[in-house]
């Protein structure tokens, strides 16, 4: 479903990704591990279309379509979801109205009518409960003054609401305590199915103990240096990257 071919990316004239190749099949969970500065987050941002991440050469196909020619919002509407490492604050915008608006943007692209307020509230309650999110969080402004854990849960909630086919998680585990990690991982596991693929970017084994990956890739200097199954993650955890 996702094919990355010979991808070269520069950020501020510095080459970060070098001839990256990666194939991700339907329903697969791929973990990407690697030391700081190895280019892990750059993959996430490039796939999502962040400005200033310049693709010098290479190709990316998502569900058979050229991903790189699309605007960031089109990539989202086509099923790509990026859970941010540092979710952004939107002062003055209440979380509930924001969530409803992004849900409606996706409905509109499927030529569906905007969601009814009552129905939305029902869905929001259900999905918030799964993540242990109190409803009063939705009357606060998006991510503003949220704790690290609340921000990450809010990302997973959006992931759940938008029903994406490819989920990229950029260090979703950072900032979560043990209980929150478990709740969040449980919610993510519920999203796993045969159609949906995941790229999990992480430094640590602990998230992968909850969400079991099919493949683990080790990243260094902008490309994959080793690929294995979940035992590779345990080895790195014990031995480090070198």
């Amino acid at each position, binding site marked *: 479903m996702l094919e990355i071919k010979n991808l070269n990316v520069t950020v501020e004239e510095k080459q970060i990704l070098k001839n990256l190749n990666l194939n991700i099949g339907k329903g697969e969970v791929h973990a990407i591990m690697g030391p700081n500065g190895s280019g892990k987050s750059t993959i996430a941002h490039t796939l*999502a*279309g*962040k*400005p200033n991440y310049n693709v010098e050469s290479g190709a990316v196909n998502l569900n058979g379509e050229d991903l790189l020619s699309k*605007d*960031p*919002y089109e*990539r*989202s*509407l086509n099923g790509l*979801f*990026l859970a*941010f490492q540092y*979710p*952004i*604050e*939107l*002062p*003055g*915008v209440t979380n509930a109205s*924001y969530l409803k*608006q*992004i849900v409606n*943007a*996706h409905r509109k*692209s499927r030529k569906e009518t905007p969601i009814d307020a009552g129905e939305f509230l029902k869905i929001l309650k259900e999905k918030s409960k799964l993540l242990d999110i109190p409803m009063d969080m939705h009357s606060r*402004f998006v991510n503003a003054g949220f704790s690290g854990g609340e921000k990450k849960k809010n990302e997973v909630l*959006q992931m759940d609401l*938008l029903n994406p086919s490819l989920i990229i998680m950029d260090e979703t585990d950072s900032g979560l305590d043990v209980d929150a990690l478990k709740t969040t991982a449980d919610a993510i596991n519920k999203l796993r199915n045969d159609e949906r693929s995941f790229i999990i970017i992480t430094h640590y084994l602990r998230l992968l103990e909850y969400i079991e990956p099919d493949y683990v890739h080790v990243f260094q200097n902008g490309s994959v240096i080793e690929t294995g199954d979940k035992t590779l993650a345990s080895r790195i955890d014990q031995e480090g990257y070198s």
Partner: protein
Amino acid sequence: MNKVSKDNFTQEKYKYGFVTEIESEKIPKGLNEDVIKLISKKKNEPEWMLEWRLSAFKRLENMSVPKWAKAEIDEIDFQDLYYYSSPKDFKEKPKSLDEVDPKLLETYEKLGIPLKEQKVLAGVAVDAVFDSVSVATTFKEKLNEIGVIFCPISEAIQKHPELVKKYIGSVIPVTDHFYATLNSAVFSDGSFVYIPKGVKCPMELSTYFRINASETGQFERTLIIADEGSYVSYLEGCTAPMRDENQLHAANVELVALDDAEIKYSTVQNWYPGDENGKGGIYNFVTKRGLCKGKNSKISWTQIETGSAITWKYPSCILRGDNSTGEFYSVAITNNYQQADTGTKMIHLGKNTKSRIISKGISAGKSSNTYRGLVSFHKKAKNAKNFTQCDSLLVGSECKANTIPLTENSSNSSSIEHEATTSKISDEQLFYCMQRGLDAEEAQSLIVNGFCKEVLQKLPMEFAVEAQKLVSISLEGSVG
């Protein structure tokens, strides 16, 4: 980063830019005693009103246009303007809507202001001013039953001279400054509101100003009096056709609140702002002032300023009554080459007077947006309090935002709190929203509406949604 191009929307951006093809009757161009006499005659005014106008005109001869605003204003040739324009054969205001020219009804229908009573917004009475005349006022009789007077000021001058005489010019002195004096000499129409003692006006009252004729200035005059213990919420809206020339709208609005009375005055100003190269647009030079005359009175200004080539206005409160309150909530948006110099004056004269200023300025394109404010505590203003918050949001890197808050304090028991922020819509915020499926314009509008939410919430509910849309439309084309 996004494919939204400027061409996508410029055509539909200002949807009120049409011209009503209606024959108009103008009095000759120019500013002189004869013109003033003619206006007064057209309005069938009593002698005292004409005298008042002429004395203003005499003063005007020694005055010059004020220059304090941070705006580049082309010199206006005041002799090259029409000061009065009305639809042809408009001798007297139609007594009922059936007598109103269908073209006019259609115009207001197109502007989203249906005047036929079965179609109007429930709970909103409208006075429709077209160029220099009021063409229709809805719910007049119904309001009359409870003693509320809501009519064009030209009608009030004839029917309620004692009220007009007593209050006109009592808040904005005839000699205040050039445009206020000019308005006093040549004003044509506007609304008059009187709320009797103890009456809470059950409807929103609103005036819709439309400039249609070319080369014509609109000189609106509005006077609102809330008698003891009364309440009124009033809203004005404004639009004009798209024209290459700059047109002048110089209004005087006076509010008077007596003991325990409250006036809430909201403006959604959407004059034609000029095109994306800064050609054309309305010069909006407006003097708005409220007098909290009685104890415990309250005047609250809310303004959403999106239009005009140049906006120059400072809705102010004179807090004379003890324990009176003044409020100013403002969103001013400038895009392309628009210039706005707006803010408020809170003059604290009485004891325990309070004022609150929340100003949100949003600048985009190559525009310039200035908040100019004055908070003044006089000697007798014991325990007076002010809170001021001025936030500026910049969209892009070619626009300007200025904040000029002045304070004068002669009272030693008073307090002033002032907060100011300047921020930019960050690329991070836009990218975050776009990653969730919003296109660039939707993302920007979400963030901007969040920024001005505090003010938008102050608008009467019927208009809050419209205003929200207007905020988004005004910034179209400023992303990417």
